[in-house]
């Protein structure tokens, strides 16, 4: 019996066929798993595996087939093994998986048939917008003194404890825990959406931390400064750059969302299949006890001690949860928190992103809470960063780019002061 594996991809009208030759054993199974993930990342929702020339399969190979089945069905697609060789068929049958893997059970397809409110095609990318709650609005509260960041001069006086229930999204600098003393060595970028809070600690561990609302437990973050929005989103926009084969820049998604509510301050939450995030995160807590005040965080060469930033995009094969706000005319307490977030400087906002292990997103109209809950349940949080735009003409990374994704967004119609609660 020969060793090795060869995979040939065949594109058909509504499906992709992978013809697999060779051994599907515990060693080569990973090779097939990667090929299947590559197909998923192209946005394919129907996959057939032709195993006519696969003469060997072990439980390691079966595991890849079962996981592929679950992932395709999970996004409203289909997966089937076709023309299995006698040896492969024997093992699949022994495992009791024939009825499912041979395509005998067709998963229900629900998402793709939902009516869209608006469909736009721009430069090869497709945008579909769904109306959610027509009267939904967001209230926004900005807190803290972001002006202390350049001098890393935060102290216990500026921090406050934010409670983050499911109808709030928030971002800023903070740490999981209650009180300055408990968090002073860990303050970093945080992001909270739908009752899930994630923080990038600056204590040297580099392992992002997160907390998920459960029963009466509501996550709390001690924040040095932050933006929090409470309420509902009015629209859901699905976007897909795959028809053009070119990833979509963040600015293109924001421009489409802003077209729906011209001249309005918007709150947005996105879940995207990332082709690369451009951003930065703190390496050290920006508090006086950690050498702040004496030197400027953003000055060279000090910036290297303080910030983790790569001119190359990071998290190129991940799912990114992003939340933030954009505004052309922000109120005075929000304005210090907004920066140009597109390379041309045309859009001002503030966004944080949390990157998770890759898995494809279902098509069509999807719900915010379960989509984000699934990320925290299964995705493997990899890191949190503050998103940036790089406008340097040579060598600049530009901005974050996405294969496809979902964006929930809506107008912010009320700004509350730091002394008020949302």
């Amino acid at each position, binding site marked *: 019996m020969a060793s090795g594996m060869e995979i040939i991809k065949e594109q058909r009208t509504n499906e992709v066929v992978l013809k697999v030759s060779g051994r599907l054993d515990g060693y080569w199974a990973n090779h097939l798993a990667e090929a299947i993930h590559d197909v998923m990342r192209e946005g394919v929702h129907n996959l057939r595996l032709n195993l006519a020339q696969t003469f060997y399969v*072990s439980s*390691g190979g*079966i595991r890849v087939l*079962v996981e592929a089945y679950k992932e395709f069905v999970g996004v409203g697609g289909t997966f089937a093994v076709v023309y299995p060789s006698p040896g492969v068929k024997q*093992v699949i049958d022994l495992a009791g998986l024939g009825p499912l893997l041979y395509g005998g059970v067709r998963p229900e397809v629900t998402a793709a048939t939902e009516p869209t409110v608006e469909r736009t095609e721009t430069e090869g990318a497709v945008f579909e917008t769904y109306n959610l709650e027509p009267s939904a609005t967001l209230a926004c509260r900005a807190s803290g003194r972001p002006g202390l960041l350049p001098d890393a001069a935060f102290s216990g006086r500026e921090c406050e404890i934010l409670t983050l229930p499911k109808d709030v999204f928030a971002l800023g600098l903070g740490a999981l825990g209650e009180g300055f003393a408990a968090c002073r060595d860990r303050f970093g970028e945080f992001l909270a959406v739908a009752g899930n809070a994630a923080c990038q600690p600056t204590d040297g561990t580099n392992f992002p931390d997160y907390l998920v609302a459960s029963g009466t437990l509501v996550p709390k973050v001690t924040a040095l400064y932050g933006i929090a929005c409470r309420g509902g989103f009015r629209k859901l926009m699905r976007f897909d750059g795959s028809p053009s084969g070119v990833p979509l820049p963040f600015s293109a998604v924001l421009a489409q969302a802003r077209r729906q509510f011209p001249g309005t301050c918007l709150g947005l939450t996105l879940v995207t299949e990332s082709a690369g995030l451009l951003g930065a995160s703190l390496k050290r807590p920006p508090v006086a006890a950690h050498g702040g005040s004496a030197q400027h965080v953003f000055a060279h060469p000090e910036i290297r001690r303080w910030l983790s930033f790569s001119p190359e995009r990071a998290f190129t094969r991940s799912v990114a949860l992003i939340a933030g706000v954009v505004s052309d005319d922000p109120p005075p307490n929000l304005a210090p928190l907004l920066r140009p977030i597109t390379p041309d400087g045309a859009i001002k906002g503030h966004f944080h992103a949390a990157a998770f292990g890759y898995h494809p997103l279902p098509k069509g109209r999807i719900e915010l809470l379960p989509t984000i809950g699934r990320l925290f349940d299964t995705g493997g949080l990899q890191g949190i960063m503050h998103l940036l735009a790089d406008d340097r003409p040579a060598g600049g990374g530009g901005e974050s780019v996405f294969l496809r994704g979902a964006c929930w967004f809506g107008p912010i119609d009320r700004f509350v002061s730091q002394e008020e609660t949302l």
Partner: protein
Amino acid sequence: MTLNTGSSMQEHLRLNADVAELERLMAWLDDFCERHQIPEEAHYHLNIAVEEIVLNAIKHGRCSPAQGAIGIGLSLSGSELDITITDTGIPFNPLDAPPPNLTASLADRPIGGLGIHLVRSLMDSIEYKREGGENRLRLRKDFAGTTRPL
């Protein structure tokens, strides 16, 4: 190494606890089966059973040191294959694993346990012993009558 013991031929292979060793294992099994003209179906079943046991020891056995941690002995007597697999990993009797529920829905079905289920299904008998600090599994397969090509 080959020992000629009358009617049976015993051959041995030692592997490191490293998944990259699977290729060498399969080549060795293929060579054995071709030289002894083992029918194709029995050859296939032997490959699956040995891979399942060896891969389990590599992945979960925590063999230390990994160097030479796994041994495989094959002997052939008439139409009966006698396979011994030893590893220096933590004590683990795969026969203690409950049979997988093959009728549960796919979403609820754990994949773990499928490997030993395949070994049980494809071999005639399995015995386990913990001996001299090693897990020792003995598998038997009589391939008389299994001549049809796959």
